[in-house]
């Protein structure tokens, strides 16, 4: 088991690098705010970043349990279908999709 001092060092590294990655861009962008490129990127980025997060999260799920690939794809369809068909209630859609995946993966 690693020593406590090692664990504390890990915590310090994790804290400072994560915070720096989150904070430094704001300090830089503060001076650029209002420039055409920052305003355009602010409009263009969210949809694309969310899509990338969705695909890589799906990829992570599938690689963790390769035999559940079809269950995962079915659950994606259920999530999107429920979301579009039942008035975009996020908890309902996420809950339905997750339930489909968990039940199929554990029962079959």
């Amino acid at each position, binding site marked *: *088991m*690693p020593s406590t001092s*090692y*664990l504390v060092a*890990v*915590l310090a*590294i*994790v*804290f400072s*690098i*994560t*915070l720096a*990655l*989150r*904070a*430094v*861009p*704001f300090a830089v*962008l503060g001076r650029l705010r209002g420039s*055409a*490129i920052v305003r*355009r*990127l602010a*409009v*263009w*980025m*969210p*949809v*694309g*970043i*969310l*899509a*990338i*997060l*969705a*695909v*890589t999260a*799906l*990829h*992570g799920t599938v*690689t963790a*349990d390769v035999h*559940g690939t079809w269950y*995962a794809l079915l*659950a*994606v369809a259920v*999530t*999107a279908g429920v*979301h*579009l068909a039942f008035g*975009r209630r*996020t*908890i309902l859609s*996420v*809950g339905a999709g*997750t339930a489909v*995946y*968990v039940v199929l*993966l*554990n029962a079959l």
Partner: protein
Amino acid sequence: MRQDVLPHWAAPTPTTPTTRRIQIAQGIRDSFSAGLGIFPLGIALGLLIIQAGLPWWLAPALSLAAFAGSLELLLVGMVATSAPLAAVALTVLVVNFRHVFYAFSFPLHLVKHPVARAYAVYAMIDEAYAVNASLPEHERSAPRLLAMQIACEAYWVGGGLVGVALGAALPAPIKGLEFALCALFIVLTLDAFRSRKELPSLLLAGASVAVALILTPGMAMFTALLLFVGLLLPRHAVTARRTVQEAAGA
């Protein structure tokens, strides 16, 4: 018009308490959908830490220090084998590098108080960014944002503690709960696409992630975000040139 003439101190006072309470309630409601992914993932982290033979306090300590789900799950394995600190640092840098891109569209300008600003930056996790990015501009507010972030951190730390408590008590962990995270991102992509019909961005992101999965499946998110930004810069150049031409033509 009349309201613009009012002195500064007179304007916000009467309405602030109720709207603020409503905004906090909205923020907590926003957090529920994210919590559905965060809480089970927190339990998974706690279980993993106990299974790896690490002390229980590492779950809350790591969650407060990093507050970054996927990274923490990754770090447990490294810490359990006493990986070199330099390797830990590099992993943190690569896995969390995506947060650099969030600054472009995260509404930090809404938060005025310095302590609250610092917290909003510290707690800018994927889910907080994502939930906020899918909201229309006029529905955003500082209390709503902060309430959502504080709630998310409570779910994450709380989930970790529950996982630690469950420890070995559970014969076999329930598999597949992490799909909630994937489902959340899918739903938020649909919502963000509805509020801004940005088909070119979606296509560029799709191309980026496809290439990233083929070239670097081990760090696909990092590569995909880098490619995506790399594609948006030429798009900006094209758009800028077209704007200039239209201005000249008109």
